[in-house]
């Protein structure tokens, strides 16, 4: 799509772009539907259960049925809620979640925007979703929701900092914020040239911070069901609730794709002799591994406590990621510059 994106904007081009957007939305929704199915199946197997198997063959339509149920459910807004904000929050959660996907490159030629500040764009937009959670928690006029929203605000702020700093090393190595250039910088040769080994510290910090950003176990404090019942979305039902859930899974997609791009060499094959396999397949494989890893963690770990979470974020992850930036810079200065 590369050259085509920079063509002048005519009515025809605008229509095609719009259609591409719709197609992409369909792909993302399809991913979310089957990511939920996959998650329930995988966790079910890990927990000696079968998982969904009633609706459709192998339960494949379970999520479809669930979403349908949410769609036809009565739309309730608590009487004392702040109506405007209450309605705004789910949309505000979803819009940035979908918007960040635009910068992710899938192969050499398949991408939706070639932004030279791609990474920055991602980080900046994903921060807006926090706002939606806080607004949702506040507008519900429910104490549990408020606590969940506040926790979420604290958590997101604390973890966005190490998340961003942990990728600074990658940016230094590739010399660009453009995600396509970052992938290209990892090209050639074997898989140990990908960023995850040279940037192992950054990679680990990134994964931890990413799980926290996703609000998933062991960092799912904003919706800790054993303490806060359901956290910030306790008053939401029907399609508004579905939108919160949807944006959460869209972020799973986004983070898995971003990790693949930043650390796992994007569409590149792990060994030179495997180059004949199309890049998109490598991308999907790596992507699926990350998604599986996220689900696997959920089945394994207990939840961390709020103060421990803050402590980990500020006292461990932040210094470690700063150290990583320092080490990378020293390495570049000593070995690469000359």
């Amino acid at each position, binding site marked *: 799509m590369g050259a085509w994106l920079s063509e002048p904007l005519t009515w025809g081009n605008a229509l095609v772009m719009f259609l591409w957007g719709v197609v992409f939305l369909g792909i993302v929704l399809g991913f979310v539907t089957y990511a939920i199915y996959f998650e329930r199946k995988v966790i079910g197997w890990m927990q000696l259960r079968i998982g969904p198997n009633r609706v459709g063959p192998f339960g494949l339509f379970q999520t479809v049925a669930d979403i349908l149920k949410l769609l036809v459910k009565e739309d309730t807004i608590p009487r004392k809620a702040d109506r405007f904000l209450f309605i705004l929050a789910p949309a505000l959660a979803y819009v940035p979640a979908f918007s960040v996907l635009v910068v992710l490159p899938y192969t050499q030629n398949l991408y939706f925007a070639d932004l030279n500040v791609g990474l920055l764009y991602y980080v900046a937009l994903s921060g807006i979703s926090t706002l939606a959670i806080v607004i949702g928690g506040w507008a519900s006029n429910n104490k549990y929701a408020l606590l969940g929203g506040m926790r979420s605000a604290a958590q997101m702020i604390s973890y966005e900092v190490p998340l961003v700093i942990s990728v600074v090393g990658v940016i230094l190595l590739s010399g660009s914020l453009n995600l396509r250039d970052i992938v290209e910088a990892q090209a050639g040769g074997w898989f140990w040239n990908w960023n995850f080994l040279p940037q192992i510290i950054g990679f680990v910090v990134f994964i931890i911070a990413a799980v926290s950003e996703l609000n998933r176990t062991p960092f*799912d404090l904003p919706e800790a069901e054993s303490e806060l019942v359901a956290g910030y979305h306790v008053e939401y039902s029907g399609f508004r609730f579905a939108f919160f859930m949807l944006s959460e899974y869209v972020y799973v997609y986004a983070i898995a794709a971003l990790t693949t791009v930043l650390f796992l060499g994007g569409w590149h094959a792990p060994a030179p002799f495997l180059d004949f396999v199309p890049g998109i397949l490598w991308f999907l494989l790596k992507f699926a591994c990350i998604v599986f890893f996220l689900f696997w963690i959920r*089945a394994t770990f*207990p*939840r961390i406590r709020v103060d421990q979470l803050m402590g980990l974020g500020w006292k461990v992850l932040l210094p470690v990621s700063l150290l990583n930036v320092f080490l990378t810079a020293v390495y570049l200065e000593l070995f690469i510059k000359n």
Partner: protein
Amino acid sequence: MIRTEELLLNVGPQHPSTHGVFRIVVKLDGEVITEATPVMGYLHRGTEKIAENLNFTQIIPYTDRMDYVSAMTNNYVLVHAVETMMGLEIPLRAEFMRLIVMEMQRVASHLVWWGTYLLDIGAMSPFLYAFRDREIIIDLFNELCGARLTYNYMRVGGVKWDAPPGWMDKVRDFIPYMEKKLQEYDKLVSGNEIFLARIKGIGQYDAATAIDYGLSGANLRCTGVDWDLRKAEPYSLYDRFEFDVPLGTRGDCYDRYRIRLEEIKQSLRILKQAVEQFPQGGETMGKVPRAIRPPAGEVYVRIESPRGEIGCHIVSKGKAEPYRLKFRRPSFVNLQLLPKLLVGETMTNLITILGGVDIVVGEVDC
């Protein structure tokens, strides 16, 4: 200066982690609790009052519904009280059956606790593992007395059903299986850094406080007080078997966790010996008069239930019904320390501490 207010938060009776319909009203300053008031009684059914109009055999099913996670020990405390009053002789085989089901019940009860406690702390999978293994015990009980939860198994003077053929072999097979699974649990959970950070040093109190508040069971032993009624005042056949009473040192949630896991191990040890010594023949019911009328007077007996010291006080006027019946329920007594423990803790620790007490609301409210 920002104006701040305390937040009055109502936790329960419909809350996923209060284990039933227990309710606690907490005042929060940020996330720190400044005051906690437990509110109970949502499951009160007036068991003790109802019992005054029932004869003793009819009361037994009501005891099932008190601590529904450990119905066998509740059965036992009632029939044991009546038997003590009447001075009845229990056949050896019946006594063995009782002991075996009580120890299996202890294992099952601690498994429920283990699973739900980890669920409270946020780990989902252990819950299902624990229930898988508990299911085996429940199935064995089902085979024995046709019920999975409310057994109504014991009678004054013995037990209702003898073990069906092959049942004892299944119990024998279960013991090594469970021992293996326990190791697996230890590997899966006990070393988890997040889990340890969540429970170490949380909900700490000392031995003097525990005794002052009348705590019992793991809640008392975690402070290092060596008090297990199976050892201290042996009832049933416990003086015949070798087992240890696990003790803690720090009196925190971690010690309670370790003690309960260790108690499963010790129960399996008792079971192993009991299954070996199980008498070949014999009656399952002793010689009991047709109408059970304990002589006028009072009796108080106490035994070690999985949750602590469960007692039964009967006042009899020589009739078929008790004049007054009172149960000392360990869950209820163990809860008394809760408001004091919770002050200064966070909302998250509330769940950790409440879960660590191991309450069954059916027993708290009776």
